């Protein structure tokens, strides 16, 4: 679904680092769309987020022909060992692709195996569109300036756990708190929709990246 959203936004082929960053931002920002977190936890690394599970899934999709990879390579990991890298995109020549994407909720709630996946997909597409506005396509850097990831109280190599089990713990997910705070710059009675909040947050990330 992440890749499909990236295809719609035309940011493919997308390097692994950016895809992982997109994945992180979708996890941390999912409450903006009233969705639960996908993981709620990420290891803070100097070069931005990386999800071994997602990478493993990508590798499988590559071999199964649903995903294409170019410039497959191994790069030095910032935490342990090395990690695989490459530029990923959907393989449109694969006949099974369309029905699979439909079943995953990329077309309509009716065609999805789980109708909730359609909502997730809408969210991912909007987030990808918002991130596509970031200057020079520096999505992987955007994740490192994200309010939750950049929390300077958490040093690199530490886990950031932003899944809150306690409603008082609003400090956990500063990114969502920031998207809520946009509201305070509006007059009373006016509001931002979830999609608008994602775009505003992408603008905010752009500002953080470029001073």
């Amino acid at each position, binding site marked *: 679904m992440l890749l499909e959203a990236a*295809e719609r936004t035309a940011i493919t082929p997308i390097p692994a680092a950016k895809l992982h960053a997109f994945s992180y931002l979708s996890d941390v920002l999912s409450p903006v769309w009233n969705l639960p977190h996908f993981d709620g936890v990420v290891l803070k690394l100097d070069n931005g987020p990386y999800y071994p599970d997602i990478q493993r899934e990508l590798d499988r999709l590559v071999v199964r022909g649903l995903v294409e990879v170019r410039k497959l390579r191994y790069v030095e990991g910032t935490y342990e060992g090395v990690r695989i890298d490459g530029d990923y995109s959907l393989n449109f020549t694969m006949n099974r692709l369309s029905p699979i994407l439909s079943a995953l909720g990329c077309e309509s709630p009716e065609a999805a195996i789980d109708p909730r996946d359609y909502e997730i997909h809408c969210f991912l597409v909007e987030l990808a569109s918002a991130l596509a506005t970031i200057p020079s396509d520096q999505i992987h850097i955007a994740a490192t300036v994200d309010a939750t990831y950049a929390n300077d109280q958490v040093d690199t190599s530490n886990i950031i756990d932003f899944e809150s089990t306690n409603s008082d713990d609003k400090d956990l997910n500063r990114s969502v708190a920031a998207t809520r705070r946009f509201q305070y710059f509006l007059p009373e*009675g006016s509001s931002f929709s979830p999609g608008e909040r994602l775009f505003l947050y992408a603008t905010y990330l752009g500002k953080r990246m470029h001073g």
Partner: protein
Amino acid sequence: MANPKDASIPGVNDSDLASSVLDYPAQPLVDADEADRFCNQIRRLADSRAQSNWPNENSGDSAVFVMVKWPRSVREELSSVLGSLESVLDPQANLVPLFGRLFILNRDGSRGFVASLPCGTKDILDWLENNGLDRWPVAILWRQKERITFRRNATSDESRWLDVRSVMPKTTVDNLLKALSQFHEDRLVTPGSCEGVWMKGREAEYVPSPTPEKAIQTELKHSLGSWFHGSVKAESEDKTSVGRIDIRLLVRDHQAQGLRYWAIIELKVFRSFHHPTKENQTPQPVSRNKNVEAMRNGLEQAYAYSQDRNLDEGFLEIYDLRKDKSFIIEAQPDIEQYLKKCGKSIHWNIRPLYGSMADYRKFYISNA
């Protein structure tokens, strides 16, 4: 504006958030449907190029922009027909030449691919259809005419015209009134351009849909957002249970570091009939008093809202869906009385809608 009582977020600078909000009017129409969103983005692109006198252009009078679901997939499909397609990244910022070219873009018009136009502009719709691109919204930009023709898809009969502005309209009352008038002319005066106003198939009988206000409200919101793009946030709020619908327009307020209200528009409709519960049922007539009441309420609300939000002027747009428009509602005594009291601060307009082209020609064109 920013509530100082509410604790700011650690590590997040309020001034960064505020300046992001100030940039809000540059966002796409995030809540519009994909076609409208795309159309607005192309207009934005065209306006900005016109304002800098069409930089980097050589020849050609038209450019074609097609929104597709997966631009890369379309590129792969078209490469056998068009040869290699160049990547396009943020055409608004990067000043790629537009004319004489066919753009395959995402819904925000921000990324995709471009090739030379494969045929004359008049044949482009057929070409798109022949090449499997007939499902997608298409905008054609005309340099000489300074217009955009927009179709929700290449085979649609309906098309919309949008002016390209070499000078952006400022946020003035006159311009707002002009935008409202234009919206009425382009989208509402005849049936078919704005879905959801009339009951499908019974437009000529002047039978409205169950919620014509809602349909008009959504279209008007996006239309005003597009008209004043870059300077206005248009938003709507529906409280249909009490019949109140309004559109709010916000502009940047650099001093207060955020957005502030610029204008509030109340929408009302006059109608001859209620929406029938069954498809072929004869619709129940709406009393004259009901329409008078609608206007009175509209005036009162427009006034109350503008006062409430500290605005000098209010706007009331009444869309007249009546079959027989001869009864002059604004001339009724209590309306006249109300207009005397607060009319100066309310800009109100009654805009006629016709259920058929014949009526439109008969009553509107001839009167004009």
